[in-house]
């Protein structure tokens, strides 16, 4: 049984995209190309003196093997669609922002910003690298939106325009916190400076009049911090109280308010300088922590729904003409023309054409399906061969895939358990309150004048801000460490939930198996090399994906004559190659004995009417998957949900262990229900998947991680995005998350020590502003440094 991997075996690299060239026939000057598309891009750039593109970086381009249809952007001529995409337009110029997934290096930046050399109507192009967006200003008299999109496509930078772009404004980046931080930093710094005379007043360096002035200036400077910068915490604490949940911001806000009032009374009564420096310092550090923790990955989106996958417009056939129509405007009984490689946007009946539809996105089934005229095709599939026409039976919003997305349980995700930090802070608050009460009773009995200073000092010093700092800085560091290993989590909550999981559910296609690679093997009668070549030559006549694999496996000889070639949809192909009549296809077509329980997809071969054998095509598992699964099954329960058939069930059971439960032929809804069942049993579920078919399960699970082959790819809504090659690192990534909790607890214990020192002064009512001013920043800064050192050390490689 021979097994080879289907990879073109060449050493020539394409100048444009860096991929291997299939042969050395596509040459321009001294440069080799993998396809005509890449060569064309090179020619365009060469003609326009833009070849610096290739000198800035090696092979910066994207493979152009799949040509883009000529009229793909015809819909951009439509006024109505235009208006929804354009940001600004006056008599002279138009502003538009395109999302271009391919932007990845400085060459891209250079080329795109030199777009005016390819189209004189373009006035200015600005690339936002981290968001992969280009902002284009052009004169609409000299060029059109469609022309710009086409030029971008011709140089390999096809803008991605999806249904999501229609009418929706993208949320602006949150700059609000940064402003608040700026103000807090400004006030904190100045208050510290102005407090210095006060700190040293007991050493005789003071001037009564000056001190008075400084105190009032401090008070003025603290107002913006209290009323503007600290509002974030007020709001969050208020939100918590309203829902009856005592979150960590409640005691913090209490401490801020007590500090502020105590300081105000001190200044007004002339008793002292107050603790403005400590208060503003706390707010400043906590804001830094929050910004660090909330840092998001601009280039990634965690909230994609089906609209991000669907095209913005599709061609509707009306009296023989192709009219580009925006998706929401499609009605039932419209005839849609779906071009090669286009997504079917609405459920419909196939009326014309050879439908070979790739549903891997929706169902996970790896092998494309044939549909005959009159059959129903569902939205979400991708047409692979030629153009087809379908008659819509449902509007886009009511299609099968879309309705899956709009299910109610997905709309209202269950309340996720609050973080352990809030629980910790709750105990902490009660302890602090009792210490305050004890101090108050003591001084009430002994020296009632010291009740107020003692109680307020206790509340000031015992603010759990150190806990919050420890948590937010550690979360920030861990998110950064994970992103270095190419796991991008949506937010800090996901770290804690990932640490708590006890059940891992895998998708098969695209997750355990690679997307592109497949292995093919042959079993049956021994074939002579001539016969093998003959089979390959016949298979090369068809563009069915399985035929292509067979052709690549067997090799082909273009000089061999193929006669009477016939291709029967959904069955197979047949033809005379030299002196042999060869049939390739399924069992009924070839007349072979159908042997069930085979692995993967099967293509039977008959030569001159005699069954010869069969080709078996398997998707290849990712490297290291076996070790990964064996490692994981010792600590977690494993499950597999596959949209595919159970052909590879035995093998999977073997590598996933006897305890794993495997489920095949799972519809997207089944996957979702399976996750719900597990959760009802009290499991914390981690779902790892990649396609739209996993979207419901990803969203429902405690942590959903979607895999992506490259960061340009589109991933369904999830809590995290993991680069596929890093899947084998999963145990380590989970360990990093478990460390998160440990680090927070360690730093919290250390911060408690500071609190004890402070409390020692506070209960006696002798907490001087100087002690507070030293203790507060010292504890904050040391905790910040400690979280950093611990996170790096515990997660060192």
């Amino acid at each position, binding site marked *: 049984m021979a097994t080879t991997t289907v990879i073109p075996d060449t050493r020539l690299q394409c100048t444009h995209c860096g991929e291997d060239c299939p042969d050395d026939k596509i040459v321009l000057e001294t440069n080799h190309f993998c396809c005509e598309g890449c060569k064309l891009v090179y020619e*365009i750039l060469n*003609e326009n003196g833009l070849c610096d593109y290739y000198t800035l970086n090696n092979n910066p381009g994207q493979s152009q093997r799949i040509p883009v249809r000529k009229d793909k952007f015809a819909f951009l001529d439509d006024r109505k669609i235009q208006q929804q995409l354009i940001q600004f337009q006056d008599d002279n110029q138009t502003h538009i922002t395109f999302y271009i997934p391919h932007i990845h290096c400085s060459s891209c930046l250079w080329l795109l*910003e030199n777009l005016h050399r390819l*189209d*004189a109507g373009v006035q200015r192009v600005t*690339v936002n690298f*981290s*968001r992969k967006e280009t902002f284009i200003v052009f004169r609409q008299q000299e060029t059109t939106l469609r022309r710009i999109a086409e030029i971008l496509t011709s140089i390999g930078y096809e803008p991605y325009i999806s249904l999501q772009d229609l009418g929706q404004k993208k949320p602006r980046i949150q700059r609000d916190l940064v402003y608040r931080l*700026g103000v807090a930093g400004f006030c904190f710094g*100045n208050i510290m400076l102005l407090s210095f005379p006060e700190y040293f007043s007991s050493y005789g360096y003071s001037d009564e009049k000056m001190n008075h002035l400084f105190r009032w200036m401090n008070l003025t400077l603290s107002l913006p911090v209290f009323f503007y910068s600290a509002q974030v915490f007020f709001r969050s604490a208020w939100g918590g109280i309203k829902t009856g949940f005592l979150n960590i911001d409640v005691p913090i806000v209490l401490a801020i308010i007590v500090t502020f009032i105590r300081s105000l009374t001190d200044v007004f009564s002339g008793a002292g300088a107050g603790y403005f420096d400590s208060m503003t310092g706390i707010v400043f550090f906590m804001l830094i922590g929050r910004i660090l923790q909330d840092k998001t990955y601009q280039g990634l989106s965690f909230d994609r729904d089906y609209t991000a996958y669907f095209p913005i417009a599709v061609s509707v056939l009306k009296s023989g003409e192709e009219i580009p129509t925006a998706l929401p405007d499609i009605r039932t009984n419209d005839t849609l023309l779906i071009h090669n490689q286009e997504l079917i946007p609405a459920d419909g009946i196939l009326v014309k054409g050879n439908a070979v539809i790739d549903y891997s996105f929706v169902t996970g089934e790896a092998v494309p399906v044939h549909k005959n005229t009159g059959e129903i095709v569902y939205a979400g599939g991708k047409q692979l061969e030629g153009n087809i026409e379908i008659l819509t039976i449902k509007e886009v919003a009511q299609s099968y895939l879309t309705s899956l997305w709009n299910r109610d349980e997905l709309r209202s995700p269950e309340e996720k358990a609050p973080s352990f930090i809030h629980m910790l802070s709750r105990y902490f608050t009660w302890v602090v309150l009792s210490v305050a009460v004890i101090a108050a009773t003591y001084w009430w009995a002994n020296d009632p004048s010291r009740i107020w200073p003692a109680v307020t000092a206790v509340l000031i010093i015992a603010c759990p801000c150190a806990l919050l700092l420890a948590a937010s800085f550690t979360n920030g560091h861990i998110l950064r460490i994970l992103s270095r290993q190419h796991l991008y989590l949506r937010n800090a909550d996901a770290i804690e939930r990932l640490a708590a999981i006890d059940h891992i559910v895998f998708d098969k296609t695209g997750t355990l198996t690679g997307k592109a690679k497949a292995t093919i093997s042959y079993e049956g009668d021994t074939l002579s090399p001539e016969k093998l070549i003959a089979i390959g030559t016949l298979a090369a006549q068809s563009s069915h994906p399985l035929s292509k694999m067979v052709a690549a496996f067997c090799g082909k000889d273009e000089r061999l004559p193929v006669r009477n070639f016939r291709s029967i949809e959904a069955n197979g192909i047949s033809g005379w190659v030299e002196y042999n009549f060869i049939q390739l296809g399924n069992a009924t077509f070839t007349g072979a004995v159908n042997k069930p329980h085979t692995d993967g997809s099967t293509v039977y071969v008959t030569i001159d009417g005699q069954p010869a054998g069969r080709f078996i095509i398997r998707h290849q598992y990712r490297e290291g998957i076996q070790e990964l699964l064996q490692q994981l099954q010792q600590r977690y329960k494993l499950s597999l949900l596959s949209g595919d058939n159970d052909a590879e069930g035995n093998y999977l059971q073997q590598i996933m262990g006897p305890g794993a439960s495997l489920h095949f032929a799972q519809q997207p809804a089944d996957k979702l229900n399976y996750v719900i069942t597990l959760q009802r049993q009290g499991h914390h579920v981690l779902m790892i998947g990649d396609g739209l078919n996993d979207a419901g399960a990803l969203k429902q699970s405690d942590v959903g991680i979607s895999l992506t082959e490259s960061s340009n790819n589109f991933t369904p809504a999830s809590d995290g995005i993991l680069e596929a090659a890093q899947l084998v690192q999963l145990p380590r990534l989970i360990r990093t998350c478990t460390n998160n909790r440990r680090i927070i607890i360690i730093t919290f214990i250390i911060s408690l020590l500071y609190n004890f020192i402070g409390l020692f002064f506070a209960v006696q009512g002798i907490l001087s502003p100087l002690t507070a001013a030293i203790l507060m920043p010292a504890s904050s800064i040391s905790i910040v440094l400690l979280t950093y050192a611990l996170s790096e050390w515990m997660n060192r490689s």
Partner: protein
Amino acid sequence: MSVIIILLGASLLVAIFFLAAFIWSVRNGQFEDNFSPAHRVLFETKPAETSTCKSGNACTNINCKSRICKN
């Protein structure tokens, strides 16, 4: 000692200036993309080669096979 009050005012003014500069730079989007500006300054603008057509001028280059230039 009254000179301290003047100094105080001056130092606050300087600090306010920097705060304003910070807020302006955030609003201006200077912290949003930390890749492009750093690389953009390194690109040279070479004079366009003569073999290419420049739009707006009548094209006199008979060897030009450009797909883009419409002149």
